């Protein structure tokens, strides 16, 4: 839940990039760090393990300017995608305001996407949050691999697998080149701010 600091007139919200291992969550944040220099307010922090895999989280702070005289700060996080780090994912999710679910378009990762989405739902439930209610954006990453002849799932199939019930905004992306990264984040920020408006009853 967003933190309101009335004394400093600050609002801090947390967006978490979730998804299976090696789907491109960190690559999303790296691209944002590189591209949205004006909005990025600090260094990107990454805690990696062997093979450049995220061990704890990546962290990137951003500023969105002022709304109603309050500074809006956004913290972007990624979770470790590997199955065995479930408790770390749960820890990172604590206090989350919105989620970007990064799905891997590679056909062979179909089941991993679905398991990760289920894991997200379960972890949210433990914080009394519903995957159907929290601001959520779906990103279908690695679309560029089709050019290399790799077997990818069609968007229709991914929508059917992951977004049939959720019906949240979804975007195709190639995080490595940055395609679709900005638009995913912008949509997520839009949903987050809308949700904040509801919480604070801003008009």
């Amino acid at each position, binding site marked *: 839940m967003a933190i309101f600091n009335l004394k400093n007139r600050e609002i801090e919200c947390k967006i978490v990039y979730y998804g299976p291992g090696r789907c491109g969550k960190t690559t999303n944040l790296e691209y944002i760090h590189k591209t949205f220099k004006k909005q990025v307010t600090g260094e990107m922090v990454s*805690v990696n393990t062997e093979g450049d895999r995220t061990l704890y989280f990546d962290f990137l702070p951003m500023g969105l300017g002022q709304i109603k005289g309050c500074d809006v700060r956004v913290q972007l996080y990624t979770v470790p995608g590997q199955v*065995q780090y479930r408790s770390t994912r749960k820890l990172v999710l*604590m206090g989350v305001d919105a989620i970007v679910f990064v799905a891997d378009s590679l056909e062979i990762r179909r089941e991993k996407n679905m398991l990760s989405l289920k894991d997200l739902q379960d972890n949210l439930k433990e914080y009394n949050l519903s995957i159907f209610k929290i601001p959520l954006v779906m990103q279908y990453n690695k679309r560029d691999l089709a050019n290399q002849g790799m077997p990818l799932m069609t968007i229709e199939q991914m929508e059917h697998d992951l977004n049939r019930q959720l019906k949240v905004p979804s975007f195709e992306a190639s995080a490595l080149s940055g395609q679709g990264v900005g638009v995913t984040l912008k949509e997520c920020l839009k949903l987050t701010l809308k949700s904040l408006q509801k919480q604070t009853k801003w008009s």
Partner: protein
Amino acid sequence: MDIKQQIKTLIQEAELYRNQGLLKESKIKYNKILSLIKSNAQIKNKETLMTGITRKIVAIDNEILQLAKAPSVIEVPEKIQDLIKKQFAFAAKDEDSGAIEGAIALAKFGQFDRALKEFNLLLDKDAVRVVAAKNIIRCCMTHATVEDAVAEYEKWLSGDKFSSIQLNSVRSFLGDILAKKGITQTLSPVPENKSAADQGSAADEELPEEDYLDISAIKITLEDGPQKGKALEFDVNFQSGNVLSLIISCKDKSLIENLDVGLKLTNVQFFSPIAIFEGSGIIAEKTQIGTGPKSGDYSLDIKILSTN
């Protein structure tokens, strides 16, 4: 597609998966290539090709092994520890409970040395002293040894920071853990009216431990597998709210295999310093410990689902 083209496509896929870090997927493709080559008589240079592919598989196996060996907990730089403290201490009612939450966050992220330092500093604060002490004991149990935990208690006993009420609370907590571990060592008793600080409250018992009693051990009756019907007792090494962490020796292979993530445990007894109660739980996580004295053993997280 002719066989040559088929193999070429598969190699391309296998290489890309490997570059993406999808090692198991890459290995599956290489094995498929190997079977294709083996079963096809028309392929020229069969032996050379097979040797090349086998080398690739061995290299991938090595990478997988390296990943498996990588520690699941690492000591991060102080700057990142500060970030963890700041960002993962939520809903703190005041400065002291905020500091406790920050230190607990450090422990949860495996930053035990720094967490211990922070908890030790918090022993100076009457309001959170017992919570800090219990967390020091938990850190010792997870990160160091039982002897270290006992030594901490003895040190507090001989000092004048703790009141009798506070020491009794810590003693009961530690004593219960020792008993469940089958360690017969008797903890030195707390003298009555130990110091003037005896007015120090034990109200800290009610401070932020997420409203769950401290569970020192649990007894699980298995309902399936080769040990069906057997009641097994485990000490709780770490507790975070309703999640209990246990250590299972790597020697208990069949038990480890039987206790899979997602398995519901409907017959569980929870032992706390003040009561024993029954309930159910679910295995939330199973991780092999990569470093330290318990390297090779398994850490099992059980989430309490209900209690009677």
